[in-house]
């Protein structure tokens, strides 16, 4: 997805030194305010990739507010992550929040149609 698009929010969290980097992009439907499409790219262990993959399934079709409320425990529970891998689900939670923040920062105030920067 093109991260310069106005209806796209991008979140990049983590650090290569810690072994996990997650990039999450959401496309938000203008009319409904719901997430119409999600894409991820992850550098990290299997749990991190699984967490981000599950997250994309989870938030697709959700409204931004609901997506922002996703807790890492939900992801961890679904994937049965062991305690040492809990940080992967936290990273996923951070990623979606960061993506939503990015989307909102692009358009302060009420969403308007077709505004170019």
């Amino acid at each position, binding site marked *: 997805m093109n991260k310069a698009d106005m209806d796209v929010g991008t979140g990049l*969290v983590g650090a*290569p*030194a810690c072994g*996990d980097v997650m990039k999450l992009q959401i496309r938000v439907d203008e009319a409904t305010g719901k997430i119409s499409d999600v894409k991820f790219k992850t*550098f990290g262990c*299997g749990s991190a990739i699984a967490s981000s993959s599950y997250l994309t399934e989870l938030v697709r079709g959700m409204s931004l507010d609901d997506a922002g409320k996703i807790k890492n425990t939900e992801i961890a529970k679904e994937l049965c992550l062991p305690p040492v891998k809990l940080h992967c689900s936290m990273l996923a939670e951070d990623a979606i929040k960061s993506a939503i923040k990015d989307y909102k920062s692009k358009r302060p105030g009420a969403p308007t149609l077709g505004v170019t920067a």
Partner: protein
Amino acid sequence: MASLPSLSARRLPSTAFQRLGARTLAPRQSVPTTRPYVDGYRGCNLQQRLYSMRSATLTRPALTTNGTGMVVVKRTYVKETKSVSAVEAVVRLEEPRGSVPTIGKPPINLSVDPAAMISPEAGILKQATIMDTGSRPIYLDMQATTPTDPRVLDAMLPYMTGQYGNPHSRTHAYGWETDKAVEIAREHIASLIGADPKEIIFTSGATESNNMSVKGVARFYGAKKKHIITTQTEHKCVLDSCRHLQDEGFEITYLPVQGNGLINLKDLESAFRPDTALVSIMTVNNEIGVIQPMEDIGQMCRSRKVFFHTDAAQAVGKIPVDVNKWNIDLMSISGHKIYGPKGIGACYVRRKPRVRIDPLITGGGQERGLRSGTLPAPLVIGLGEACKIAKDELQYDHEHVSRLSKKLKDGLLAMEHTTLNGDPDRHYPGCVNVSFAYVEGESLLMALKDIALSSGSACTSASLEPSYVLRALGNSDDSAHSSIRFGIGRFTTEREIDYVLDAVKDRVGFLRELSPLWELVQEGIDLNTIEWSQH
């Protein structure tokens, strides 16, 4: 010899029992076996089966009918002449041992499953874990452990069944025969490293040998000498022994290594102190395979009258080792790294000039009082046999491993953004440690689940921390996170290497597509300029 007739004559005894029974001529029907005959480790079962059937049918009871038409079993005794043929059959049972082709050099018939070439037993194990491809994963983790050579198992088996004497028993033949075999094993180990058999102490493995050497020397000479030198890239068991000694009031110098994994001899020279008791530096590193300059270190230690211990678990049997040429005072050897059994190792302790150590395990005073406890004779004999084979085939194995290693290394380094960790020249070829930039090591291990690999030592593979060895080389954390160790050994085949190369290229490509870092790099962004959030 009289034997009772057997109704279960057609039931076949299992291998171990068969051999035990063969040796002692025990009545066959007493063997409780309900399990169908499983394919044994040697692959000559059909022959053996026929032989055992032949001997079993000797005691087949005579079936007659009485007047009412009922079948009765008449008890008979085996005639003298027939028991002779029973002995013959026993002799034939032993025959296939020599005639079986050695499994060390796999046949070129590539239609055979690679695992099955190592041991037909793998055929049974195959049912335990069927991977996507329908066969067992390719084993490329020879630094963690090696498969037991079938020839080693052959040497061990008699001492697990018939010859079970305690090697320390002096009062009967059981003890004597085991003791003799143990002493022969000791000679094999000594001759592999150029030592005297009396200088070999059997232990449970290299970890115990390392503990015994480091703690033993430190505690014995601790009253006067309180300083120990080691390196940052040692195995955990040496580092942890040193940590314990620190708690006891010793001072430890952890030498840094250069970018290629080798120590700087000048660093070592300046680290010596008048009260230095011991220098412990490993010969071949277990993660990156670099070979330290042993001869130079040995000379420096000897001229200063400092004891020199080396952890040679990854070196013995793989590169030529000579304790006298290298001036080594103590050396740790592991059984399962050289195609021997697990749970056995040895420690070389020099006698001239004598090295004295404070034993970790005390008791009956076995092994010159340095390591009490009954020797596990079958394991000891297995280690001896492994050393004998390693000595005989050292050059052949080394050439085989070097050839495969070169192929693997060239193939992997031909990919973009890959680097070899460790010095390329002073390097044991069987250990290839490569960093794949922008791919996380653990995810690559998961993607390559049809290949058994490791991102570092097996002891630390459960932790999330990047390898301390790679960090000691000065690698950044992210490159330490992206490293994979490939271990090549005696039984690795060229076809396996071809498969691994294809698989690695394929999966690394896939994971890079998935990696945000790779994307950023392709866009031309320098990763170091990004401010990463910390977790």
